């Protein structure tokens, strides 16, 4: 057990720090929140800069254009980019953090060659089409139908909570390919080109007044069978792979940013009761960072991040909610204006993070998974099967 970064990790750190010091001042101003075209341009431009400098897809194998970096280098990257206040992944979130890793594990050679380098270069943006109006926590109840017709699936149905649906080039799409099979066994995972005829994207206005999520309506959309990831009707298993990335690793960069927000909030906080709560939250975030280091170390040894990875999302999202509540308490009436200089962003973050205990599996679903898979407790009796 040791927390010390190696000499080569530290060399990586100073090289990265020097690059960030040069690259960040060259960035254009961050576009407005609702200007999705400009946001896409900004985020993919940043991704391209990372790619050109050799910092894209740190954990990805070299054959897909990645760096094949050690786990500790990935942590150093997060520490340094956050400390330097570099842009976050933005619209590249789905592609980089869960669609890409899913393709890497489950995709065909053609699918990997087509998409992985493009995601890394920032040429391709992905969105997610998993949930449906009647299939949220009970995702396997999804009804969007795909009927085989020659070399295509003809897809009809409705998706909701599609992250970055407005700017996506491709979507992770779950469809029902066998309506007669038990619900977990009739699902397939497809790559959906978002420019196909029959697709309509309608933005959802969130509590933030923003529209990073959309509804997607599919009306007899012809998706090539070659776009299927994994075997037909084996999509639920592929979905678990996607979830393992979405819940296990995609949250790590969030967590590092939360520690920065905590420092920003501390600099505004004098009240002793509030500062004590800050101390408590800081201890939790420090501990979650330590747990992340443990998961990463275990993953390097055993290939699986262990029990801790299942716990990170639940623990982090609950701690983050406490931090958000504290920020509103500290800001008081100064927080009543979302555009207030200095502090408006903090209020906006409170609103945005209301979704963390819901998205990618609610806290309640996470507790079911932990109690059943890790603690071995029996499943709750179902009303119907």
């Amino acid at each position, binding site marked *: *057990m*040791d*927390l*010390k*970064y*190696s000499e080569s*990790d530290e060399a990586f750190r100073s090289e990265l720090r020097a690059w960030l010091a040069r690259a960040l001042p060259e960035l254009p101003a961050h576009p407005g929140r609702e200007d999705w075209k400009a946001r896409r341009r900004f985020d993919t431009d940043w991704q391209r800069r990372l790619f050109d400098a050799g910092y894209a897809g740190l954990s990805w194998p070299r054959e897909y254009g990645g760096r094949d970096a050690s*786990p*500790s280098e990935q*942590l150093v990257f997060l520490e340094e980019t956050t400390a330097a206040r570099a842009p976050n992944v933005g619209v590249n979130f789905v592609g980089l953090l869960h669609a890409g890793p899913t393709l890497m594990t489950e995709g065909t050679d053609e699918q990997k060659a087509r998409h992985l380098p493009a995601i890394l270069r920032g040429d391709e943006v992905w969105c997610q089409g998993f949930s449906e109006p009647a299939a949220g926590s009970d995702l396997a109840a999804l009804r969007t139908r795909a009927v085989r017709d020659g070399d295509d699936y003809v897809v009809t149905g409705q998706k909701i909570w599609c992250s970055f649906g407005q700017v996506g080039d491709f979507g992770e799409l779950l469809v029902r390919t066998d309506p007669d099979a038990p619900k977990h066994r009739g699902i397939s995972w497809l790559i959906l080109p978002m420019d196909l005829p029959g697709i309509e994207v309608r933005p959802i206005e969130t509590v933030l007044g923003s529209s990073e999520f959309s509804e997607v309506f599919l009306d007899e959309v012809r998706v090539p069978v070659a776009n299927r990831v994994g075997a037909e009707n084996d999509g639920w298993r592929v979905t678990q792979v996607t979830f393992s990335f979405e819940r296990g690793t995609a949250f790590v960069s969030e967590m590092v940013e939360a520690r*920065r927000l*905590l*420092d*920003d909030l*501390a*600099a*505004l*906080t004098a009240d*002793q009761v509030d*500062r*004590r*709560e*800050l*101390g*408590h939250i*800081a*201890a*939790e975030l*420090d*501990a*979650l960072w*330590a*747990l992340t*280091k*443990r998961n*990463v*170390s*275990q993953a*390097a*040894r055993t290939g699986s991040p262990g*029990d*801790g990875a299942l*716990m990170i999302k*639940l*623990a982090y999202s609950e701690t983050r909610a406490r931090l958000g509540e504290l920020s509103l308490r500290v800001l008081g009436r100064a927080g009543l204006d979302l555009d207030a200089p200095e502090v408006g962003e903090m209020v906006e973050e409170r609103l945005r993070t209301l979704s963390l205990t819901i998205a990618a599996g609610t806290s*309640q679903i*996470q*507790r*079911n998974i*932990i*109690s*059943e898979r*890790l*603690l*071995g*407790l*029996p*499943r*709750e*009796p179902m009303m119907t099967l």
Partner: protein
Amino acid sequence: MNFDLTADQEALRDGIRSRCVSRFPMKRVRDGFDRSVWDELGEAGVFSLRADGFGLADAAIAFEELGRALVPGPLVWGHLAAGRAGGITGGIDVVADGPVIVEHLDAIDALAVIDAEGVRLVPAAVIDGAEPAARPLDPLTPVHRVGRLPDGDRIGGIDLLTQWRLEGAVLIGAFLVGIARACTDLSVAYAQERRQFDRPIGSFQAVKHILADMAVRTEVARASVHAAACTVDDPQMEVTRAVSGAKLLAGDAAVTNGLAATQVHGGMGFTWEVDVHLYLKRAWLLGTAFGTSGAHADTVADCLPAKGDTP
């Protein structure tokens, strides 16, 4: 950076664990602390671990197992004082801990006292006028109220005081993680065995969500204690921040899990017969040792930017 347990650390953990299972079953633990407990732990190397070349991280791994078995006694003080005092050594921090309530006074040979100037050692025999509590909160930790402690011999100054407070907080934290873990294990077992409405109560979300939270709380606290121990062994970040965060999270995890275990056990959790109350009571007791959660939260907050700083 490799934050996984090494093979040696796993072997140490397994060794202490199996010794606890064979030598300290709950039946014996319920008899409380005596010289035989001290001697056996001494033979197992619990007190001399670091003199034998192990680090604080290794000691933390051992103390988590002792906590899981709820082994009674002034074990952390014994570990801190190893090599500086002979016989059974208890301890107290008269600056941080408030009124002078001494644990295990009848069983110890000497009392290590942290005061404003450092650490002194007082032979137990010269402490007089001590009033025993007829009903101590933790039945396995007898306490005496002491009016005035004799001076004894000074064995160290501010450096030793600082070192003991940090190491003591980490080791108590490790013991508390063990308690949090034991409470989870007891509750999971009970929820699988206890049936109501024709099924195990552990199948109900209202119960299993409590258990999931207990497991998560324990894992987060354990990572924090291990990080603090590694940081004391080889300072990479602010040591006080790491240690205070660890004691805080471990103390809260043990008490919260003790309360949750009581709830999951229903009426049985309110009985003397079921072990849950012994874990909860020890968690409460240790929450008062080596700094309270509130004090540690303040210490962590002091490591954050102050109002008006540029973060």
